[in-house]
């Protein structure tokens, strides 16, 4: 059992439908602050040496995920235990280490869990998963490369990825060597209209590629398109340190005892810059989606490390452009592919390995998704509660999904490296038999921690897939051109396209991404220079309207909102109150009526009258209570 603090309410039984109760469960690593309260005195405990000098009446555990657990020991006779429990938590917290060997989870549940996953979210650890996904995206010019099967190209890369059809594995290996940490260009998403979204690391400037190498690099970036747009993802976006600082400030602001006066709340919120960073991400993602969906070209996201903002932008772009990604299943696959498999260093970023490289980029991403959910309430199959569940899961040590930095480490842990010899041959592939990773649990096994009733709430009742028809405009598939020098190469930066002379930095000019870019407010759109001169629409916009499934998010000051249900969960006074029953209430009413009608249909009307009074036809009270829940249900906890 992973190290945690759990509160078991009276009447709670081991064999309920979830092994762990998500509401009262606190992983030790998640504890941001522990307070003991007695009378008027309150003490903060957490440092290994801290000592408790009184018997606490109440302890408060502030989670780093903004949750708050308050446990009172008010009933008589609990005093000795109160002291013991508190000190035990302090000690356990001091000793815990998130990177410690993972002991695995109760396997009885595991077998059951994997069986009940309806369409299991592909973990993207086998070549089959990649092939299936490739077919789903109809990326015909691409194939699954097995060059990294032994993680010898890059440990941070997945074992499989997509490369252009015509590129040989030897060329892939050759080209990848010239990118930072070996993270060369791979396909992220193929737009049905024909353009491709690629991601890659920065060019490795110290290397000295020969002509062959350069050609390989170029043809990989070009991916058969005549137009290539390089997007510098670090440009205009916050640095990792910025993200971390903003998140710390946000957390301080949202603590129950933060001293910000209510009339200064807005400027304090602005001062955290968190919302500003969200705006920047949405704006950039929106720009890139327009680039990807409106013309046929190869759009390459380039970030030095290729493990943070590239994942964020690539995921956002897909959410904006691909209706499939907005389903519950699609979103989970997306996170698995663009974050987990792509090697986002979750452990480091979430503070598991020491503070230096900590930056909750993934949480920033979740907030961006929440903004989209607010702006387009009918376009997403999943609900805010799902996002909250995901938000709360990043520090829960039940599964390895978020507890390792690279696919390699994750694989090592779950002992799947014995499938070394597996060779993928397109056409006739058979699943590797009897490998243990089939049993591996992931965060997507929601029934480990959430009850069925909670999982039901992951669905957005307002989801209306017909709301946005996913019929794509017919577009010509690009004919793959003969490889050669790219006919036009652009750099997209600060909201503007700049022509580039060449794709790779090595030939003569200094490197493209050698300049460290910092986040800056976009200067241009407002100022006269660009906007006023070229205010007219480009002529081809009219002829090439944006596809109907594309969402263009708002990213103005008034449109970016504060995720109250997530960040203010620790404040008792905000936890109270109700959300309006609105859609789910109506839905229940609807199904109730339908049921009534169905029951009556075979009957003759006179009986109906008496039937109506029958208590059994009316929903039973417990079901009704399910409709109206606290505003923060099911993810808040205060009263224990």
């Amino acid at each position, binding site marked *: 059992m992973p190290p945690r603090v759990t509160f078991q309410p009276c009447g709670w039984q081991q064999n309920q439908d979830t092994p762990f109760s998500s509401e009262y469960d606190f992983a030790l690593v998640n504890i941001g602050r522990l307070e003991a309260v007695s*009378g008027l005195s309150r003490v903060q405990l957490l440092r290994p040496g801290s000592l408790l000098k009184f018997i606490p009446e109440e302890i408060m555990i502030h989670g780093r995920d903004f949750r708050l657990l308050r446990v*009172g020991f008010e009933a008589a006779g609990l005093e000795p235990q109160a002291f013991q429990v508190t000190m035990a938590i302090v000690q356990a917290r001091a000793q815990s280490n998130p990177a410690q060997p993972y002991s695995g989870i109760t396997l009885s549940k595991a077998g059951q869990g994997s069986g009940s996953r309806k369409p299991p979210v592909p973990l993207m650890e086998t070549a089959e998963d990649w092939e299936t996904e490739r077919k789903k995206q109809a990326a015909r010019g691409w194939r699954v490369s097995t060059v990294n099967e032994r993680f010898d190209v890059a440990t941070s890369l997945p074992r499989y990825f997509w490369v252009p059809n015509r590129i040989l594995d030897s060329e892939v290996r050759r080209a990848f060597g010239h990118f930072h940490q070996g993270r060369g260009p791979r396909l992220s998403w193929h737009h049905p209209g024909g353009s491709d979204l690629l991601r890659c690391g920065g060019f490795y400037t110290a290397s000295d590629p020969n002509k062959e190498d350069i050609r390989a690099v170029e043809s990989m970036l070009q991916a058969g398109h005549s*137009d290539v747009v390089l997007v510098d993802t670090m440009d205009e976006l916050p640095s990792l340190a910025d993200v971390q600082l903003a998140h710390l400030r946000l957390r301080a602001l949202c603590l*129950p005892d*933060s001293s*910000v*006066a*209510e*009339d200064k*709340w*807005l*400027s304090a*919120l*602005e001062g955290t810059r968190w*919302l500003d960073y969200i705006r920047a991400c949405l*704006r950039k993602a929106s720009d890139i989606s*327009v*680039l990807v969906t409106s013309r046929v070209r190869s759009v390459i996201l380039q970030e030095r490390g290729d493990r943070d903002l590239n994942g964020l932008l690539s995921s956002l772009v897909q959410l904006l452009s691909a209706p499939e990604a907005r389903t519950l299943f699609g979103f989970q696959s997306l996170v698995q592919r663009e974050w987990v498999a792509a090697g986002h260093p979750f452990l480091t970023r979430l503070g598991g390995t020491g503070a230096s490289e900590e930056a909750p980029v993934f949480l920033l991403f979740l907030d961006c998704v929440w903004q989209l959910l607010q*702006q387009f*309430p009918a*376009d997403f199959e999943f609900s805010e509660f799902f996002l909250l569940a995901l938000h709360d899961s990043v520090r829960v040590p039940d599964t390895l999904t978020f507890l390792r930095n690279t696919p390699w480490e994750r694989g090592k842990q779950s002992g799947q490296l014995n499938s070394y010899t597996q060779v993928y041959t397109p056409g006739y592939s058979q699943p590797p038999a009897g490998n243990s990773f089939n049993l591996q649990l992931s965060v997507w096994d929601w029934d480990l921690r959430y009850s069925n009733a909670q999982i039901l709430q992951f669905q957005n009742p307002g989801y209306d897939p017909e*709301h*946005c028809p996913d019929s794509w405009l017919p577009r010509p598939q690009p004919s793959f051109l003969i490889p050669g020098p790219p006919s036009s190469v652009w750099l997209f930066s600060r*909201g*503007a*396209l*700049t*022509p580039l002379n060449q794709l790779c930095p090595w030939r003569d000019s*200094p490197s493209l991404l050698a300049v460290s870019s910092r986040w800056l407010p976009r200067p241009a759109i*407002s100022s006269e220079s660009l906007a*006023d001169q*070229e*205010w007219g*629409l*480009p002529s081809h*916009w*009219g002829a090439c309207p944006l596809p109907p499934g594309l*969402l*263009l998010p*708002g990213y103005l*000051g*008034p449109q970016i909102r*504060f995720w109250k249900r997530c960040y203010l969960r620790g404040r008792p*006074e905000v936890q*109270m*109150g*109700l959300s309006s029953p*609105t859609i789910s*209430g109506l839905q229940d*009413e*609807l199904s*109730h009526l*339908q049921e009534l*009608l169905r029951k009556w249909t075979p009957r003759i*009307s006179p009986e*109906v009258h008496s039937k109506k009074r029958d208590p059994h036809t009316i*929903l039973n009270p417990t079901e*009704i209570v399910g409709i109206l829940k606290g505003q923060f249900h099911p993810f808040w906890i*205060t*009263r224990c």
Partner: protein
Amino acid sequence: MLGKGVVGGGGGTKAPKPSFVSYVRPEEIHTNEKEVTEKEVTLHLLPGEQLLCEASTVLKYVQEDSCQHGVYGRLVCTDFKIAFLGDDESALDNDFDEKKKTLFGQLKKYPEKLIIHCKDLRVFQFCLRYTKEEEVKRIVSGIIHHTQAPKLLKRLFLFSYATAAQNNTVTDPKNHTVMFDTLKDWCWELERTKGNMKYKAVSVNEGYKVCERLPAYFVVPTPLPEENVQRFQGHGIPIWCWSCHNGSALLKMSALPKEQDDGILQIQKSFLDGVYKTIHRPPYEIVKTEDLSSNFLSLQEIQTAYSKFKQLFLIDNSTEFWDTDIKWFSLLESSSWLDIIRRCLKKAIEITECMEAQNMNVLLLEENASDLCCLISSLVQLMMDPHCRTRIGFQSLIQKEWVMGGHCFLDRCNHLRQNDKEEVPVFLLFLDCVWQLVHQHPPAFEFTETYLTVLSDSLYIPIFSTFFFNSPHQKDTNMGREGQDTQSKPLNLLTVWDWSVQFEPKAQTLLKNPLYVEKPKLDKGQRKGMRFKHQRQLSLPLTQSKSSPKRGFFREETDHLIKNLLGKRISKLINSSDELQDNFREFYDSWHSKPTDYHGLLLPHIEGPEIKVWAQRYLRWIPEAQILGGGRVATMSKLLEMMEEVQSLQEKIDERHHSQQAPQAEAPCLLRNSARLSSLFPFALLQRHSSKPVLPTSGWKALGDEDDLAKREDEFVDLGDV
């Protein structure tokens, strides 16, 4: 001065800031459907409306897709509106731009550009460069004169319209809004709130004999002698506003005139003592006096805050928008408009606590009892009395507290433009407070935010008399026809509550909250006609079977709750530790910790993150703020769809039930068309087929056009140099 002719022309001279800004009332809202017939550019005039001046070949800037282009047409000014008649197809949906506010650099000879800011925050820009000089002169001075210069009450369009449309007006007999202009209305209200045991309606001011400030009929404590009312022209007497179910009442009083003379002060003092004695002894509850003139908001503060706040939304062009965007939150905060809203809501909660939990009477005191008194007393009633959350109830509330309560709409809205200092948006502040409540508890209200938005617009439509007088007395004395024979019947002025004048039935559905569920069982004493046949009855047993709040309801449970839930933490939100604040805090926290009964007491959240900007009203004309296919409308359409289904199922069940054919009942539904609506619906129906070109177009054009490449290169900073 910037006078750009066409799209993208000219480099970057920036328009100088206008040197003065002033406002004119916006006039009628036209639905554009009427004008859709092609090439119909004739001016539609209302009865009594006169064309004052016009200018042709005016270029109107159209902001669409964030790119500006222009449309030629005729600019017309009447005594009701300013209209632009385009003779270009693309101008069709821009005919009849009513409302305006003008601003330009000092009226030099011939301005080239005319910018009109409307009170509903729309901004129009016209270029006059291609217009004949004479016409420019005429139209500009005409507009200035008719929109900026002070005018007489009788010159309001209201009167010419009423005179001309005398025969056409049909008053809606089904309008159940209680107008409070008869003794009967007041008696009915007393009976409804069960206040008739301790309070009586008096007709001492009939014909405005006693004072012109008060309505002809009002309610005072039963033992109060009527001559007391006459003594200081209605000052210094407690006037009843509303009674709570537990017997406590909300009263208001206008302060006695300030006097220097000791003798008069002595008389005043003894008079007040007498009055207080009557209401201090049983059966009356303990009275708590709440002086709104001294310890609360000042009108000056409200005025300043709103004018700052408003500037955030009066956007002349994208440039301004993007410039302010980055500092949005701090600008918002520095206007302190949201903080003023919070303070009003908080004050109302405090008073609610006194009445509900402590069973005290509250006496609101203000100089004339006609500004903040109206605001606070309406808010209290809205929170405590579910009847006020129905549309009819809300309209009756406004009639009672604002129109009959003598709120000086004429001065506060500055309809006559005689004194800018008096212009204070108190009523708008009230609507914004109500919006916060509606936004936080949508199912509790029968009306929608759209209703509030159009109501706020109606404040400036000089067709309805509701918001154009300072007092009922002023209205009544101006009703007679001038000059003509006095025998003819008085003018028939329209009331704003007759929504059919403004909106077609289809559009009126947007004003009604489909999720509102009427109170499950109606008391037998309920007045007939309070139920509307279209109102939905929940088919489930009401989810909250909480009994309606009883006397002392909160008190019983708070102790326990506070101990368990809040512990010893004194909330940081209210730092004062005095007893009053503790009571408030207890009451507030305990209410919010319970499930909400939408037909009971309703309190707003007032923490920092909870007070929001009324986006529908303030952002609706800003194209940049549009989210295509998103926003609340997306949920609404889904909701309406489900509502319809529920309705039809219910009908089916009823049909089966009574084995009789239920009639049709097809909910008209504006939202159900398949097209994706914009988040600005139903206000700005902007055409936006594409995204804002975030990319400089030079780059776009060059894409796929290699020849251009070389020429363009120098325009961009080479990245190597950055």
